[in-house]
């Protein structure tokens, strides 16, 4: 008796790519705004980025219904934390919370590929990259989503930072300035849009630094 396979899957992949780059005193998080299913575009105008705390922003690609649910769960947990501790969560604390939230659904995962970006308690940029079940690490830059295999090698080439595992330790943040990092992100998405069908339409960029949060938008190819 051959194994029966399900005719319906609870998951769908809405495509898209996200990128985050950590700087000495800033963090850039960007994602395209195309939401697709199969070969169809559902909308050209969907934000994959959500601000979890004052200095903490998350970008997620994958199944947007799971992403929306995850964002809501994290906001609720953050609110509870604020009531209990009388302060906002720091970015590394939020990173651990996201990891645990993802792992608690280990046997029915959130189909979400996340990058978390923000400023740590010293004001330095930090980026955390995740897999779908919650394994995470702090890195200098990362990309996730359908275009990540195209984007990552390019970021490695431009930004390759020394591994945090090296001893004697070397700093992991990029030497680029804020404007250079934003330009790099724009270049990266323009290239990914050329070769990935699920990436395009518009680019949303969020820049976090000591003076607060700033948003920029850029047009991408709509084909």
């Amino acid at each position: 008796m051959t194994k029966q396979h399900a005719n319906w899957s609870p998951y769908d992949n809405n495509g898209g790519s996200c990128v985050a780059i950590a700087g000495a005193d800033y963090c850039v998080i960007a994602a395209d705004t195309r939401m697709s299913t199969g070969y169809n575009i559902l909308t050209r105008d969907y934000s994959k980025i959500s601000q979890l705390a004052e200095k903490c922003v998350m970008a997620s690609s994958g199944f947007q219904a799971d992403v929306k649910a995850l964002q809501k769960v994290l906001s609720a947990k953050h609110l509870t934390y604020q009531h209990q501790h009388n302060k906002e969560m720091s970015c590394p604390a939020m990173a651990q919370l996201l990891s645990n939230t993802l792992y608690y659904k280990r046997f029915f995962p959130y189909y979400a590929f996340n990058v978390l970006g923000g400023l740590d308690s010293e004001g330095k940029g930090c980026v955390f990259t995740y897999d779908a079940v919650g394994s995470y690490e702090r890195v200098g830059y990362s990309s996730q989503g359908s275009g990540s295999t195209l984007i990552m090698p390019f970021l490695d080439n431009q930004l390759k930072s020394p591994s945090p595992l090296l001893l004697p330790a070397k700093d992991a943040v990029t030497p680029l300035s804020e404007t250079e990092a934003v330009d790099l992100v724009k270049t990266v998405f323009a290239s990914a849009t050329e070769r990935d069908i699920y990436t395009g339409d518009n680019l949303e960029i969020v820049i976090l630094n000591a003076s607060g949060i700033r948003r920029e938008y850029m047009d991408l190819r709509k084909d």
Partner: protein
Amino acid sequence: MKLDTSGLESFPSLISHGNDVVGEFEAPPSFELPNSNDFDGFLKEAIQMVKPAKGTTTLAFIFKEGVMVAADSRASMGGYISSQSVKKIIEINPYMLGTMAGGAADCQFWHRNLGIKCRLHELANKRRISVTGASKLLANILYSYRGMGLSVGTMIAGWDETGPGLYYVDSEGGRLKGTRFSVGSGSPYAYGVLDSGYKYDMSIEEASELARRAIYHATFRDGASGGVASVYYVGPTGWKKLSGDDVGELHYHYNPVTPSTVEQEMVEATGP
């Protein structure tokens, strides 16, 4: 279903097969086959069961001065390298380390959980937990999730009142006490180097060099291992990270490049 294997016999058998003892050895070779309608599907599922270990090389061994723990830092998703800087040696508490092989999230989560349980044990009992106890806590948790798809192949290394301790614990529920272990797809290569160079009476420098070499050789031959080779030492005062070296650089450290005389001549000829 039985295959016709008469073509595999090299010569017709002249001796009668009356004797029970030698009967099995002299019988014509044949393949045992499963009783299944979908032979192809069965094979596919069987291969899934014995799928090769996750891309990693980790190792740990006990020697005279304590425990040496080493690992690479590559994470792969199929053929794509998702990270070259994964921390595979997890600091459970200041005197105990765990290694990561298998599912990254499973290892990270359950090691952190183990650290919490160890701390609670300290608070409840006013003494540190032993390595035996800690590994048993983890093994019991993993056993309870047996068959649910967790993938964990870890070594718990530490120093407690009885001295150095090393246990191998996996998601099948296995727990083994031992003095030398290597886990992961690169482990055969690491074992080769580790076993041939191991002596109980090594100094800390010799042991860390052996561990580093073993990881380097595994990353050289195993595509799923690479990145940075980290080496930790666990002694009576706790663990200490001894080194973290990029394996690409280690390659040229162990195999220095000396330009040959022919190359040098050609460089001179094309000079200004």
